[in-house]
């Protein structure tokens, strides 16, 4: 079929592609995906999602709902019970009040919420501060929204936090928003309340909107998660994005939400109603069950991640890959400087020689060069085996 189309005179599909999309590089993760896929017996520490299956009571609630014939559209903003339940939870966990009718939107995964937040707030040429190393979608999403991403490098020496001195040189009169993504993928770094306080003056002086992706908030191991919205006078300036993918092991369900100022949420809802209409009803039902009755299962999973975190991070340091303490999410971000290899070289050789898949840090931005992202959302047995193989790899390197 493809061949036939190509043979039609005068037809050139490329000419019909958007220039913006054509100019966008494919995700650096893709190459690794292909390499790992064709290998047998590889242990993958490259997976950015929980290894747990969604707890049974959540799946069961969804099945029951389907059996009852609950298969219709919901309101654009999402089921009222679900919105109310999330607002209650946020009040309890973070002390923040949001109106379930006007200040929250249920989205198809946090990914949609990120996209909507940028599209609803950016005009052509508006600049957004995006710290890196960071999750791979923000920069393309800003570009697709017509904005201009301005990278802000974070460093190991300052625990991969965003500090005022990192962003102030990058701010111009076109800067409109600051993206914050903590606990952070890929570094596992967190921002404490004090760290956020330090940014507040700059944010206000430059009248920035803060778009805060907090999808790993529930996976903070050493202290309660702090949100920029909790700072005095900052709730209006902040759009919180969160979801159930990581906290309740529900990645495939695609349920996220956005909360913030009613004008911004209204604008996001407008795009959502024209492009998505509503998040899938069965996933919304499952999300309601998860939030209403899933606290204990969530704590159990978090506890298990924490055990693995200690096991894996101490293991990395023991075999000679120095790793700062990740305090959130489920990633360790060890430095490979001692190996003398680049992130790409290290990852590729480790995969070919010892069959352990990690993601090279530079995939998440240039300042991730010299690091690896290793997900510890995998069984303890696999983590121990992976550490053994990595140790073998390192000692073979030193003999070269």
């Amino acid at each position, binding site marked *: 079929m493809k061949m036939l189309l190509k043979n039609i005179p005068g037809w050139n599909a490329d000419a019909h592609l958007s220039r913006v999309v054509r100019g966008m590089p494919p995700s650096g993760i893709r190459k690794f995906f292909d390499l790992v896929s064709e290998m047998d017996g590889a242990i*993958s520490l490259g997976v950015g999602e929980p290894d747990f299956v969604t707890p049974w009571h959540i799946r069961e609630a969804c099945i029951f709902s389907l059996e009852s014939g609950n298969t219709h559209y919901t309101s654009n903003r999402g089921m009222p019970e679900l919105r109310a339940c999330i607002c209650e939870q946020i009040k309890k966990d973070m002390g923040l009040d949001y109106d379930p009718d006007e200040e929250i939107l249920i989205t198809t995964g946090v990914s949609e919420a990120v996209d909507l937040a940028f599209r609803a707030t950016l005009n052509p040429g508006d600049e957004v501060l995006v710290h890196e190393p960071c999750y791979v979608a923000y920069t393309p999403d800003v570009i697709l929204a017509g904005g201009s991403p301005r990278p802000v490098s974070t460093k190991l020496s300052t625990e991969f936090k965003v500090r005022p001195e990192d962003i102030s040189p990058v701010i111009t009169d076109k800067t409109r928003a600051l993206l914050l993504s903590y606990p952070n993928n890929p570094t596992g770094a967190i921002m404490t309340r004090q760290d956020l306080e330090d940014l507040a003056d700059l944010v206000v002086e430059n009248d920035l909107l803060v778009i805060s992706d907090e999808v790993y908030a529930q996976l903070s191991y050493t202290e309660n998660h702090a949100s920029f919205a909790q700072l005095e006078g900052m709730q209006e300036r902040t759009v919180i994005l969160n979801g159930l993918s990581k906290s309740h092991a529900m990645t495939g369900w695609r349920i996220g939400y956005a909360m913030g100022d009613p004008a911004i949420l209204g604008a996001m809802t407008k795009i959502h109603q024209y492009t998505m209409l509503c998040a899938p009803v069965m996933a919304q039902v499952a999300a309601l069950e998860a939030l209403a009755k899933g606290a204990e299962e969530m704590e159990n999973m978090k506890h298990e991640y924490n055990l693995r975190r200690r096991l894996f991070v101490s293991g990395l340091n023991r075999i000679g890959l120095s790793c700062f303490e990740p305090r959130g999410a489920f990633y360790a971000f060890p430095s490979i400087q001692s190996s003398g290899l680049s992130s790409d070289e290290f990852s590729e050789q480790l995969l070919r020689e010892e069959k352990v898949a990690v993601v090279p840090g530079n995939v998440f931005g240039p300042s991730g060069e010299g690091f690896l992202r290793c997900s510890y959302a995998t069984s303890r047995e696999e983590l121990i085996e992976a550490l053994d193989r990595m140790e073998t790899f390192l000692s073979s390197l030193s003999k070269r």
Partner: protein
Amino acid sequence: MNEILEILSENAKATPGEIATLLGRPEEEVARKIKELEDSGVIRKYITLINWERLQESYVFAVIELKVALQRKTGYDAVAERIARFSEVESVRLISGDHDLSVTVRGRSMKEVAYFVAEKIAPLEGVQSTCTHFILKSYKEHGVILTERPRVQRLVVTP
């Protein structure tokens, strides 16, 4: 203390060193606490969960429900402890509801179990009636699903 027990309850083979790494505490401290738990009888035994059904030659298990006449002074304890001494008996529990004691018995054949109940349990003083339920298939034991189907695989690398 409870964190150590949670880990051991899931894996009796976890060593003090491994537990110490998981909890981020010194190995000596963990070893000392385990010793205390053993000495005080909180940890009674380290056992292995076996899926006997996977073997050709397996055991037969039965749950026996007993009605027992309450005895002055000793209540149910005297009968229950008597029953518990038989090596064929795996567990003895006092339960609420229609019956008083629930006893699990292990034998080589249904006949062997039935004879054991008839000869050793039913005639005991205080035992008023027995009702034997043979276990036909075990789906979950000690929190472990024995009939798990192969899991759906995650994508190998995702952002």
